[in-house]
């Protein structure tokens, strides 16, 4: 119990000092700066206490202190170090703690930076911190089990924890969540800068200071989203990388708005316009993080999401803070609407700024449509019974947006030179457009025939080549300026990958029997060679031999039954070819009766499992339908002294043979009439799932081919790399103290 007291003491110190900092910076809003020094000192103490608290929490996990509920519920003794550390953020409370830690550390960088609106910015930043601290006070990570529960265990502590969800026992669990939370945390910075500028009605340094943070937020959030997709594809075997699930969407929406903000800041920096929409974007990209947290953590979507969420009793607080931040921001935005107003906008329709402005509009629109789709169970609840939109909605709305954005991305780099007229523009665009046309024609030859796909491929290629030409034909663009172009080329590459891999992915399912000949799927012959080890061992894999023309290789997708929940865990095997991925995903393994096929001559009886089966007669059925002929085998099946007649049938229709299987009497399993040898008076029967049959190992394997999926990953690397370069550049500019356009009042 000492540990609990120490943990809660650190939490209490953090709360008190955070409150002091909040009040100190808050008073500065009313021109009483006397407490700013104290507020800053308080912040340092708060940060120290928070970091210590997190370290202490981690120690409890590493030391297996199962008296704490959180440690007991998410970790266990057999976890290796990486996974043990990842239990820090495996649960809801822990993830809030990690989030608080990141925001606190970011704040240390923020507080050292003196700006004109410093106190105001820090005040709003402290409000965000207060939000997370409140959540932790409501639900402390140091919550112990009640003494009477602990008394049941020898030594007063449960001997082991319930362990980490086996689905999460994967190296991505160590990497992915912290990156996403870092992205979320970084969005709090432009939010605080925007509100600080609005509160003080001073926008002089808002662009310069929020730009690098926005770029870094884009980088982390984007990387986190993409890594999540790669996790789903490569390890979880979901078959795809993106499913428009609410949890995925709640990261995507703020990211899109954040990207829009980044572009808006570019215009505000160059032209001194777009300030109000930028402030709006900065505010809403963070508000939507909070809203997303509410959607996914409060249980409101429980009936609609693949992930399942439990309400920890925090949803009241989440709603409160969401409303509080929304009202606060709205009031500030409305009050300052007049004074924050900048110039008249962009007049020249052939300028890059105009293209960027249109791009911002469509990025925001895509974010809004995704938001509406994700919130549909809430929206419809108001009018009628709750309903959800299907994935169609997202695809239908996102694809046209992607086309427009790709077009803009392709055109914009050509819009920088002085002679901005339509004919010169067309002349400059011509080479990129010509190459895009060639690529599209090639795609058409390779069987891409749907108009929408062709359009997407054309615009994606245009975006790729357009940026490529501008960068490599104009050497002055190389250097740190390359960031944006690299990101835009990556967008094109990624889009081609997405279109081709999702529209032309092929899937097949095959039943493989161990120690039998290989089965054919696409051009592959796949043989099942049994299990590598015991299915209850967590390193167990399936042994497959794949013959592809003249080459042969071994595949070993993982499959095991998890100790924690007795669930079947799988990890697909992926073989990468230049043009596609071969994706082998085991679906199910089961023991089947050996000799499940048998031939019976009329009058003959054989034993199948616990049953005696006697073939007595053919049944020619009635020929009511002249196009169909049915033949059945009349079987007398005896089970535990009781005899029933079972008639599996075969129907010959114009389209071919159809098998009408018959169930076994009082038990599981079925019989299929596979073949009839009329002259020999015999039938071939196949039994499946009959109890008591000798066993043979059956594996159901899903085989997919996913063309050009490598382009998705290549595009992702380019997008993230480009964003990172942009961040480095903006960070340098922030400290360079270059005179900036548009910041003079």
């Amino acid at each position: 119990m000492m540990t609990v007291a120490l943990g809660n003491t650190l939490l209490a110190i953090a709360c008190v000092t955070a409150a002091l900092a909040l009040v100190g910076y808050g008073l500065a809003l009313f021109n009483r700066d006397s407490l700013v020094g104290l507020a800053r000192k308080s912040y340092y103490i708060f940060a120290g206490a928070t970091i210590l608290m997190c370290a202490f929490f981690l120690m409890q996990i590493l030391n297996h202190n199962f008296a704490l509920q959180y440690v007991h519920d998410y970790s266990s003794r057999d976890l290796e170090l990486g996974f043990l550390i990842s239990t820090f953020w495996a649960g809801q409370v822990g993830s809030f703690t990690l989030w608080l830690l990141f925001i606190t550390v970011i704040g240390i960088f923020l507080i050292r930076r003196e700006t004109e609106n410093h106190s105001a910015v820090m005040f709003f930043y402290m409000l965000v911190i207060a939000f997370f601290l409140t959540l932790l006070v409501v639900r402390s990570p140091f919550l112990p089990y009640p003494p009477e529960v602990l008394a049941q265990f020898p030594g007063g502590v449960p001997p082991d924890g319930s362990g980490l969800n086996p689905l999460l026992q994967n190296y991505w669990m160590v990497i992915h969540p912290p990156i996403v939370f870092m992205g979320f945390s970084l969005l709090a910075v432009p939010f605080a800068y925007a509100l600080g500028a609005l509160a003080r009605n001073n926008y002089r340094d808002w662009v310069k200071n929020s730009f690098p943070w926005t770029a870094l937020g884009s980088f982390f959030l984007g990387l986190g989203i993409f890594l999540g997709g790669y996790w789903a594809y490569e390890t979880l075997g979901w078959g795809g990388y993106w499913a428009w699930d609410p949890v995925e969407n709640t990261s995507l929406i703020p990211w899109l708005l954040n990207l829009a903000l980044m572009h808006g800041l570019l215009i505000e920096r160059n032209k001194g316009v777009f300030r109000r929409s930028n402030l709006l974007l900065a505010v809403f990209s963070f508000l939507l993080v909070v809203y997303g947290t509410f959607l996914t953590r409060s249980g409101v979507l429980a009936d609609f999401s693949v992930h399942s969420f439990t309400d920890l009793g925090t949803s009241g607080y989440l709603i409160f803070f969401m409303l509080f931040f929304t009202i606060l921001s709205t009031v500030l935005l409305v009050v300052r609407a007049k004074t924050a107003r900048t110039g008249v906008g962009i007049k020249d329709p052939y300028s890059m700024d105009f293209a960027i402005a249109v791009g911002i509009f469509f990025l925001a629109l895509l974010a809004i449509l995704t938001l509406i789709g994700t919130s549909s169970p809430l929206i419809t609840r108001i009018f009628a019974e709750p309903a959800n939109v299907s994935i169609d909605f997202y695809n239908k709305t996102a694809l046209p947006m992607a086309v427009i954005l790709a077009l803009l991305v392709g055109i914009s780099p050509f819009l920088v030179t002085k002679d901005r007229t339509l004919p010169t523009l067309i002349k400059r665009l011509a080479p990129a457009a010509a190459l895009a046309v060639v690529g599209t024609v090639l795609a058409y030859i390779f069987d891409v025939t749907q108009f929408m796909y062709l359009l997407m491929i054309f615009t994606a290629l245009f975006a790729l080549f357009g940026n490529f030409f501008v960068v490599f034909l104009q050497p002055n663009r190389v250097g740190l300026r390359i960031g944006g172009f690299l990101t835009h080329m990556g967008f094109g590459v990624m889009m081609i990958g997405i279109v081709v891999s999702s529209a032309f992915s092929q899937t097949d399912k095959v039943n493989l029997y161990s120690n039998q000949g290989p089965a054919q799927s696409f051009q592959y012959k796949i043989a099942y060679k049994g299990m590598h080890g015991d299915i209850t061992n967590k390193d167990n894999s399936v042994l497959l031999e794949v013959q592809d023309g003249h080459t042969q290789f071994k595949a070993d997708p993982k499959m095991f039954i998890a100790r924690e929940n007795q669930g079947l865990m799988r990890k697909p095997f992926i073989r990468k070819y230049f043009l596609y991925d071969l994706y082998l995903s085991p679906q199910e393994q089961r023991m089947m009766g050996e000799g499940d096929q048998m031939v019976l001559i009329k009058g003959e009886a054989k034993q199948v499992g616990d049953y005696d089966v006697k073939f007595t007669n053919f049944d020619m059925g009635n020929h009511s339908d002249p196009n169909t002929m049915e033949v059945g085998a009349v079987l007398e099946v005896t089970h535990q002294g009781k005899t029933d007649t079972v008639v599996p049938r075969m129907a010959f229709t114009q389209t071919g043979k159809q098998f009408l299987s018959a169930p076994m009497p009082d038990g599981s399993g079925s019989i299929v009439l596979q073949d009839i040898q009329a002259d020999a008076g015999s039938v071939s029967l196949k039994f499946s799932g009959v109890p008591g049959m000798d066993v043979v190992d059956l594996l159901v394997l899903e085989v997919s081919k996913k063309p050009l999926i490598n382009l998705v990953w290549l595009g992702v690397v380019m997008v993230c790399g480009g964003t990172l370069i942009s961040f480095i550049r903006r960070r340098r500019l922030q400290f360079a103290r270059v005179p900036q356009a548009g910041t003079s009042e």
Partner: protein
Amino acid sequence: MKVKIILAAVIVVAVAAWGFSSFTKSMTSYVSFAEAQKRSARVQVMGAIDHDQVKYDIDTQELFFPITDEDGTTMTVKYTGTMPGNFSQATHAVCVGKYNGNQFVADQLLIKCPSKYEGELQG
């Protein structure tokens, strides 16, 4: 200036109309089993899976399983798509499809597996 505003307004209205129509078209209502059996439209149901009764027909690769909703009504779901990777761990399934004959034929299956935000406190 005026032209631009009108153009922007036209785009906004067009997008809104198109967004709204795709929104209503792709909508599937979430209903009880009793309600699902009455309707001819595509609906969404959710219930607890009875894992003892799950049948997977190897030959047709069809998955059959009974689910029970909050009202205690049980119905059999037939699903022919790819079996979700974590089906065996699922406690509940969200099925999108239509009621047909004496079973619910689902074309989309969402599995509610224990995820990272679940598994809270039993003590």
